[in-house]
C-alpha cells in the first residue's frame, strides 16, 4: 500500500461524493446490461454472439467504477467525510432548484403536446413565456418581452416547419 504505484493510483479524488455517485450509477447501469445479456441466445454462426461485446464493455465499466469507488472512499476517510460535493465551490440550492424546474417544465411541455395533445403553437407560447420569465428572475418588465418573443417564435416555427419544410410538429 506504500509503493509509489499504489500511491500514484490513489491520487486523491477532488470530489469524492461525486465520484461515488458516478461509480454507483455506472455499476448499476453495467449490471443491468449484464443481466439482460443473460437472456440473449448463444452465438450460432460466429464466435462471439450478440452478448459478448456488451458484457465485455459492462465489465470494464464495473472495474473502472470499483477503482473510482475505492479511491473516493479512501479520500473520504482521509478527510473524515467532510469533502465537498464539488471542490472549492458551494452550490446554492436555488440553482439546483432552477435547473430542475427547467427540466421539469420542458418535460411538461413535451408531455402537453405528445400526451395531452395541446397544439404546438399554444404549448410553445406558454412554455417560452413562462420559462423566459422564470430565468429572468420574474422581473415584471421582461414578462411582456418574453411573451412577444414567445408568440413570434411559436407562430414562426409553425409556419416555417409546416409550410416551408412541410414537416410535422409535435
Amino acid at each position, binding site marked *: 500500500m506504500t509503493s*509509489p*504505484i499504489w500511491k*500514484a*493510483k490513489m*491520487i486523491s479524488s*477532488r470530489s469524492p461524493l*461525486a*465520484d461515488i*455517485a*458516478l461509480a454507483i450509477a*455506472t455499476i448499476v*447501469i*453495467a449490471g443491468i*446490461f449484464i443481466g*439482460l*445479456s443473460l437472456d440473449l441466445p448463444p*452465438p450460432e*454462426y*460466429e*464466435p*462471439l454472439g*450478440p*452478448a459478448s*461485446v*456488451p458484457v465485455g*464493455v*459492462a465489465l*470494464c*465499466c464495473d472495474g*473502472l467504477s470499483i*477503482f*473510482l469507488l475505492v479511491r473516493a472512499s479512501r479520500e473520504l476517510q482521509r478527510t473524515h467525510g467532510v469533502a465537498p460535493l464539488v471542490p472549492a465551490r458551494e452550490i446554492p440550492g436555488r*440553482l*439546483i432548484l432552477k*435547473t430542475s424546474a*427547467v*427540466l421539469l417544465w*420542458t*418535460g411538461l411541455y*413535451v408531455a402537453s403536446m*405528445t400526451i395531452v395533445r395541446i397544439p404546438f403553437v399554444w404549448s*410553445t407560447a406558454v*412554455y*417560452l413565456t413562462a*420559462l*423566459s*420569465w422564470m*430565468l*429572468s428572475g420574474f422581473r415584471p418588465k421582461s414578462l411582456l418581452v*418574453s411573451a412577444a*418573443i*414567445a408568440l413570434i*417564435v411559436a407562430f414562426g*416555427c409553425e409556419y416555417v*416547419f409546416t409550410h416551408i*419544410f*412541410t*414537416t410535422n*410538429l*409535435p
Partner: protein
Amino acid sequence: MFDGILIVLQPLNFFWLVVGVGSGIVVGAIPGLSGAMLIALTLPMTYYMGNIEAIILLIGMYVGSITGGLITAILFSIPGTPSSIVSTFDGYPMTLSGKAGRALGLGVLSSFVGGVISWAFLAALFGPMTSIALRFSSFDYFAMVLIGLALISTVSRGSTIKGLIGAGLGMLAAMPGIDPTSGQLRFQFGSSDMLNGFATLPTLVGVFAVAIVLEAIFRNDHAISSNANWSQKVEISFHDLARHWKNLLRSSVVGTWIGVLPGLGGNVGSIIAYAFARNSSKTPEKFGKGCEDGIVASEAANNATVGGALVPLVAMGIPGSVIDAILIGALMIHNLSPGPLLYRNAPDVIDALIASALLGHVVMLFIMWFGTRYIARLVSVPRHYLFPVILVFCVVGVFSSSNIAFDLWVMLGFAVVGLFFSATGVPLGPFVIGYILAPIAETNLRSGLMATGGAITPMFTHPLTLGLLSVSVVVLLWPFVSNVRQVRRAEERP
C-alpha cells in the same frame, strides 16, 4: 478537387456555406454555446436538405464555430469555445492596452492561414489514406477505434478514469436495438419503442444541446455586457504573413497533425502550438502579456485541426474530433455510410466537403473582417431569452426528423445524463465518441473473428494491427506511468 469548388460555388450551395459560417461564428462567439451544439441542433433540419447542401452547411458551421470563439476570448477574456482558451492569454492583455482591433486582426488572419494549410494537407492526404484504409483488415479498424477511444479519454478534461467510464457508457448506450452482425434484437427493456435503440439524433441533441443549456443555467451564466469602449475595426494586415510566417507554418502543421489523431480537437492543438511557439521564441517572457506570437499560434493551430480532423473522417470514417463524430451522424442520417468506400459511392459529397473546408475559411475571413464589431454586440443577448428558444428548437428538430414522440423523451433522458456527467466531472467527448464508434468497433471485431474462425492471434501477429494496438495501450497507460514517476520524484526529494 476543382469539381468540389465548382459545386460549392453554385448559388444555393454557396448561400448555405455563408449561412453555416455566419451562424457558426455567432454561436462560437457566445460562451456556453458550442459548434458541437449548433451542429447537433441543425442535424434534424438538414434531414430535408440534399446531401451536398447539408454537408456544406455543417462544414461551414464547423469552420465558423472554431473561429468565432476568438471574439469573446480577445475582447472579454471569456473563450467562446474551448479551442480559444489559449487566445485569452495574450488577446485580452492586448485589448486592455487598446489593441483589440490588432489582436482580432491577427487572430482572424491566423485562423484563415491555419485553415488553408490544413486544407492542403486534407486535399493531399485523403486519397492516399483512403487507399491505405481500403487495405485495412477488420482487426485494424478495431484497433484504430481503440486508439480513438484511448486518446479522447486521456486528453479530455477531468481524469482518465472518468473519460474511460464515459466512453464505456457511450458504447453501452449504442448497444440497444438490432445487433449489427446477427440481426438479433437486444436490450429493448420490454418496450416496442426500443426496437431501434436510442436513435442518434435525440442522443446527440440531448447530450450536446439540451444538457449544455441546462448546465449553463446551473452555472448561472449571465449575458456579457458589450464592451462599450471597443469601436475599432478589425485590423488585418497581410504584412503579418511575412512577419509571422514561421509561427504560422509551424502552428498550422501542429494543428493539422493533432486534428488527424482520432479523438483530439482544437483545444489540444492550440495548447501544443502555443507551447511550441513559446519554447522557440527569443522572448518567451512576453507570452501571456499581450504577445502577438501567442495569438498567432493558438488561432492558426485550432483552425488547422478542422482540416486535419476531416482526414480520418473522409478516409476511414473515424472521427478526428467530437464534432466529426456528430458529422458522422449527419452522414448516416443522409444514408451515406462513412468509410473508405464513401468517396467511391458519393464522390461529389466528398469533393463538396473538402472544398467547403477551404471556401469556408475564405467566407470566414470576410465575415470576421467586416462583421466582428456587430457580432460582438450579438454576444450580449440575454440568456433568459436565448436558452428557451434553443430548447424549443431542440424539441422541434428532434421530432421533425422522425415523427416519434419517444425520441423526445430519449432526448430529455440524455440531457439528464449529460447534466449528471457535468456534475460528476465526466467529459462529454468520450461518451459521444464511444456512442458513435461502438457499432464500428463491434462489427469489425466480430467480422475479424468470423474471418479467422474465432482465432484472436492474428490480431497480435499482423504487424499493422499489433502496432495500432500497442499505440492504444501506450496512450491508455501513459497517464498512470506519468503519475507513478511524479510520485517517485516527489518521494526522492529531501
